[in-house]
């Protein structure tokens, strides 16, 4: 079983691609329902963001090359993206899907990436099995976070969602639908792996990713609880940790503690959405923990809005805090020769720079969504973003003048559409 799972993703990914190429060549007609056929759909966001912080870029994901503030006062890269999805249904049981997304990546290109590609086997009307690249069903909205049209805000609160930059995993999942009285549930179990190319030449891997997510719908109330665990490895900070290891047993202990080397990462979240139509209330809390420089965090947000004809004004308060220390004294410099002391102090400084990336931040936001057409929404949002306790929060590309604790005023406008 283990061996099969390790080798399947690559092979499985080519299967839907092959199926789609056959279909496009054959010019099959578009249909939905229970007949064979393919469906093309898509989504996109055109956005512009302005930040008052001139010494850092505001971003919604650490997997971006830049954002708004330092690099550009106005940035289109924070939220803009285009996605296309091809669904193919073979019969009642077998179907396949391919979703491509183009958005700014760490390489500063909009090169389209395969967001997910999987083959689905509907074993019974209640039980579905999928093989391939699958959306991670974490948080209330993580699996559709790239589809701006599907949620009220300009973007899901960065404090919680930023702790999980990955949105998919390569492997298998099983989803079971079941009812308990009037409560309709969907329970999803998944197993897989993930590789992310960070700023060249760095990489991050998550292996043995296993998780379970349960969504319960009861009338206007929706609840989702999910837990996920995986073994993460990355060469982020490896040069620094090599230097610590060379500094003796105490340095090696620091390296072992913080390097991202086969470290178990866990994320758990629980959220609710009450949406009777005229208004909505969303509450969500999450915890993440890794025994590494990624640290341990707790996040929570609350959001509410009212629907007045085509307009939905809303408020969001959101927070993420470290639940373990984010500073380390490092190695002692006392009694060392001045040159050695300077070198060790530099290592200690480098370590604390990495620990400052553990997010600690609060945001208060107000915005309005305008459903201007059947499949398009225009959104305006103002965010008051404050990284604190020495953390950079969701800021990237820090300039020397950046100070944690200073509030950034962020204004965003987006046009979301689906087709």
């Amino acid at each position, binding site marked *: 079983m283990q061996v099969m799972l390790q080798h399947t993703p690559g092979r499985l990914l080519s299967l839907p691609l092959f199926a789609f190429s056959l279909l496009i060549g054959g010019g099959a007609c578009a249909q*939905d*329902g*229970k007949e064979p056929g393919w*469906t093309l*759909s898509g*989504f996109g966001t055109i956005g512009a963001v302005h930040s008052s912080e001139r010494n850092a870029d505001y971003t919604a994901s650490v997997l971006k090359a830049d954002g708004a503030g330092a690099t550009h006062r106005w940035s289109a890269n924070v939220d803009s993206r285009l*996605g296309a*999805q091809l*669904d193919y249904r073979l019969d009642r049981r077998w179907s396949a*899907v391919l*979703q491509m997304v183009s958005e700014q990546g760490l390489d500063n290109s909009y090169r389209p990436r395969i967001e*997910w590609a*999987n083959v*689905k086997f509907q074993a019974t*009307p*209640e039980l579905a099995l*999928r093989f391939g690249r*699958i*959306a991670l*069903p974490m948080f209330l909205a993580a*699996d*559709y976070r*790239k*589809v701006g*049209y*599907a*949620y009220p805000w300009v973007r899901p609160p960065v404090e919680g969602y930023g702790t999980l930059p990955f949105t998919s995993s390569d492997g298998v999942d099983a*989803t079971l*639908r079941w*009812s308990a009285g*009037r409560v*309709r549930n*969907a329970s999803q179990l998944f197993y897989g792996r993930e590789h992310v190319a960070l700023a060249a030449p760095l990489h991050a891997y998550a292996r043995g990713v296993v998780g379970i997510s349960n969504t319960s*719908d009861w*009338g*206007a109330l929706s609840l989702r609880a999910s837990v996920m665990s995986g073994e993460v490895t990355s060469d982020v900070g490896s040069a620094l940790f090599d230097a610590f290891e060379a500094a003796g047993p105490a340095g090696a202990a620091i390296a072992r503690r913080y390097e991202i080397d086969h470290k178990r990462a866990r994320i758990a979240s629980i959220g609710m959405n009450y*949406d*009777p*139509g005229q208004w909505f209330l969303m509450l969500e809390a999450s915890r993440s923990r890794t025994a590494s420089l990624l640290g341990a965090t707790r996040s929570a947000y609350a959001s509410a809005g009212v*629907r007045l004809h*085509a307009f939905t004004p809303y408020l969001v308060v959101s927070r993420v805090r470290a639940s373990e220390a984010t500073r380390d004294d490092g190695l002692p410099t006392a009694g060392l020769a001045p040159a050695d002391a300077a070198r060790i102090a530099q290592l200690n400084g480098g370590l604390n720079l990495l620990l400052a990336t553990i997010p600690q931040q609060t945001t208060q936001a107000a915005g309005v969504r305008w*459903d201007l057409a*059947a*499949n398009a*929404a225009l959104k305006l949002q103002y965010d008051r973003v404050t990284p604190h306790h020495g953390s950079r929060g969701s800021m990237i590309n820090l300039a020397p003048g950046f100070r944690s604790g200073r509030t950034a005023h962020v204004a965003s406008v987006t046009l979301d559409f*689906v087709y």
Partner: protein
Amino acid sequence: MRSGPFRRLFAAALLVLAGMPAGAAELVVIVSAKNPVNGLRADQVAAIFLGQSVRFPDGLEAVPLDQPLGSQLRDEFYERVAGKSPALLKAHWSKMVFTGRGQPPREVPDSAAVRRRVAENPELIGYIERGALDGSVRPVLVVR
């Protein structure tokens, strides 16, 4: 205790509804006359049409049929049964489609076509104007 402007507003709304043309005011959810289901609650119907439930209460698989996008009947059905405006319904299906959880119900041109297809297949469920009812289908919920 419940009198005052709110109650008067409610009474006025009822009057407006009563004065609407019969087709706009009352629609019925139908299954085939061959389907043993006798009645459904609004929440059961909503769950089937929103892709949260895949069976009738007696265990038979349930496949919903929609009226065309933009039709008044469709907008009223989702507003009353699921509390969803066309925009909210679109957002709902965006979540379902783009996470691979399902595709929206198949669309059929009008009430006569819905009735004809539902009559033929016990797995299908649809909604039509009350005036379009005949003996080939069984109403399982009256939506006012």
